[in-house]
């Protein structure tokens, strides 16, 4: 009996090693409502109609969520459905969804996720080809498709336009947005000399972005949007002399001197807004995250012919119990009406061509008008498009490069060796 007990103990210890430790699945149910309501039909007859409750899962929390919820409220009115919104980051969904799908379950009816991930898991997604084709020519982005079938549609546009600054800070210190590379370097010098300034640029850090966004902005500026596209396609390697030169001659010399160490990005917003740093590179959702969006100014690196523009992709899992209602919801969200409601809230730009800039709040309108002059306002995001574990590697290697610039060649070799097509 004693031996059996010992054997069981060993087996339990061994088996426990195969069970991974708890992993994060942050979730917040924003709204829950009853699903049945008595609806009067004609004057004398009352029937109980089941009103579908749709669950929408998206990555937006805080101010970004507040900007998105009016769209869902409008959809409830328009479609006669109940909608609850849950927050899950794509990183967490990538862990939650596979076992759910294997069990033919889905945690939501409409889910926002990475484009590459949806393509990898297309067998679990509803075909949205018919839905998309009704207004296909109205969009500035292409849908997520495999073999001609569409499995996810792009929602609103985010762009990574360049370096943000406070207009009041620039006025106070007599600074001007640069028009040449030399002026950019001179600006960084001027900012660095201002008393109280720790570094000219604060480097935000999420899980590795926006360091990746800064890097891509340099690649696009000095190699053109084509270089970014060729890197994504695997036609140009990270060890290519052109790529290395951009890193070595343009980005790396600025790292220790003008860029701060990576700072958690929401904390970075406060530090920058408190004028401990002069510039901050971030996507346009920043307009919804600062105290006074009207004080915001932004400039691209001089000579940039394009900026990264991306979107969040909406798909419907096959295992949703409300596929038709979910399709109607997506159709509403990407309709002109739905898109205008979202654009009015600020922080994102419409991905439709027929949305007037007048719809936006002032800061977003200025950005939309500025982007209209950029040759390529929607260059695909390098790491989002390549995806997979390479995306994590890209973020992680850039975090290393930021604090150890002398590791450039090792970083480029790692990025090249781990690229999916190698």
């Amino acid at each position: 009996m004693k031996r059996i007990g010992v054997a069981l103990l060993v087996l339990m210890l061994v088996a426990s090693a195969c069970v991974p430790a708890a992993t994060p699945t942050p979730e917040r149910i924003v709204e829950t409502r009853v699903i049945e309501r008595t609806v009067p039909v004609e004057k004398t007859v009352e029937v109980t109609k089941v009103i579908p409750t749709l669950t929408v899962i998206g990555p937006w929390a805080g101010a970004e969520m507040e900007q998105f919820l009016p769209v869902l409220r409008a959809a409830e009115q328009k479609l006669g459905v109940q909608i609850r919104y849950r927050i899950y980051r794509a990183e967490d969904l990538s862990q939650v969804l596979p076992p759910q799908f294997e069990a033919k379950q889905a945690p939501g009816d409409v889910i926002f996720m990475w484009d590459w991930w949806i393509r990898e898991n297309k067998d679990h997604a509803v075909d949205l080809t018919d839905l998309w084709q009704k207004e296909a020519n109205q969009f500035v982005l292409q849908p997520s498709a495999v073999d001609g079938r569409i499995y996810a549609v792009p929602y609103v546009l985010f762009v990574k336009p360049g370096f943000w600054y406070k207009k009041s800070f620039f006025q106070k210190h007599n600074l001007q947005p640069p028009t040449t590379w030399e002026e950019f370097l001179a600006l960084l010098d001027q900012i660095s000399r201002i008393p109280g300034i720790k570094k000219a640029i604060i480097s935000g850090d999420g899980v590795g972005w926006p360091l990746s966004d800064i890097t891509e902005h340099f690649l696009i500026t000095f190699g053109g949007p084509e270089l970014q596209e060729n890197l994504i396609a695997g036609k140009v390697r990270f060890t290519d002399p052109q790529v290395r030169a951009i890193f070595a001659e343009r980005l790396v010399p600025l790292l220790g001197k003008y860029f701060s160490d990576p700072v958690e990005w929401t904390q970075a917003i406060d530090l920058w807004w408190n004028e401990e740093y002069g510039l901050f590179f971030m996507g346009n959702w920043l307009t919804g995250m600062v105290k006074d969006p009207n004080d915001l100014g932004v400039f691209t690196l001089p000579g940039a012919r394009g900026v990264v523009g991306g979107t969040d992709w909406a798909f419907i899992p096959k295992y949703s119990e409300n596929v038709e209602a979910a399709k109607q919801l997506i159709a509403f969200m990407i309709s002109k009406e739905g898109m205008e409601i979202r654009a009015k809230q600020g922080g994102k730009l419409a991905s439709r061509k027929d949305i007037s800039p007048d719809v936006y709040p002032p800061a977003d309108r200025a950005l939309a008008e500025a982007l209209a002059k950029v040759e390529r306002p929607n260059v695909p995001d390098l790491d989002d498009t390549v995806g997979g574990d390479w995306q994590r590697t890209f973020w992680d290697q850039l975090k290393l490069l930021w604090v150890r610039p002398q590791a450039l060649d090792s970083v480029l070799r790692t990025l090249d060796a781990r690229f999916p097509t190698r």
Partner: protein
Amino acid sequence: MSAWRWWRQIGRWGSFLGFTAPALLLILFLIILPALQTIVLSFTDRQGNFVGLQNFAQVLSDPDTFNLTSFPPGPPPWGSIVHNAVWIMLHLPLTVGLGLILAVLLDRARGATFLKSIIFLGMVTPMIVGGVIIRFLFDENAGIVTAVLRAVGLTELGRSWTAYPETALPALILGSVWLWVGFSMILYSAGLATIPRDYYEAAAVDGAGPFQQFWYITIPSLRPVTMVIVAMTILWELKLFDIVYTATLGGPGGATMVLALQMYFYAFRALEFQRAATVATLLTLFTLIVGLWFVRTMRSSE
């Protein structure tokens, strides 16, 4: 054997099975079978064909597992296996030693219960939250540790520890000592309460000082407790995940990558389930070693 004895024997086995079967079935179907399936998966390719040790060769030659180009005493990253080993080498003696010291110092001290509760708070903090706290503890702008270091003139250590490959792993290890030391302290406190006071009184009569009493009475008496603490701590260190995930995501440049996190990335980022199963099998192997050592040691002390 008489019929009566035979029936009694059957009855004993029936009772044993009746009481243990529900738990055994749960363990069998929810833990042992999935674990065996994971081991099988580590020897197959995506199509389910047997590939021998190919997955093991690929995982072990991955720089994320073993980085031979940058090995101690060179700077990290050294690879997940080495990082786990470093974690054990530093975290284990620190938590065991500190836990023992705290337990002895707070034994019968005034306000000991309150102080122990404060120290134990780290243990009841979810490790996911613990990781975030560690990140901010060692942050240049928000961190109390970096602020203190700057205040005492160590400006070089006043920067964000988790941003630099040289300091990221030490930050996580030191932070996790704070989170885990409550466990060893509580167990040692319980162990101290079981040592008869007569031992100390007899030793005092024989002229033994406090240090001799501690060395010759306290430490040997706490040996079974120490075994439990060491085994549980090593197992925890082997399957570390949540702290690293939220504090550094294994970075920068893989400087804090650990086996469980690598397994997660293989499975849920690279979608390479065979490699993930391989790491899980390696973890199982390491755990098995610790488990066997623990059981043998316990049996020999009995």
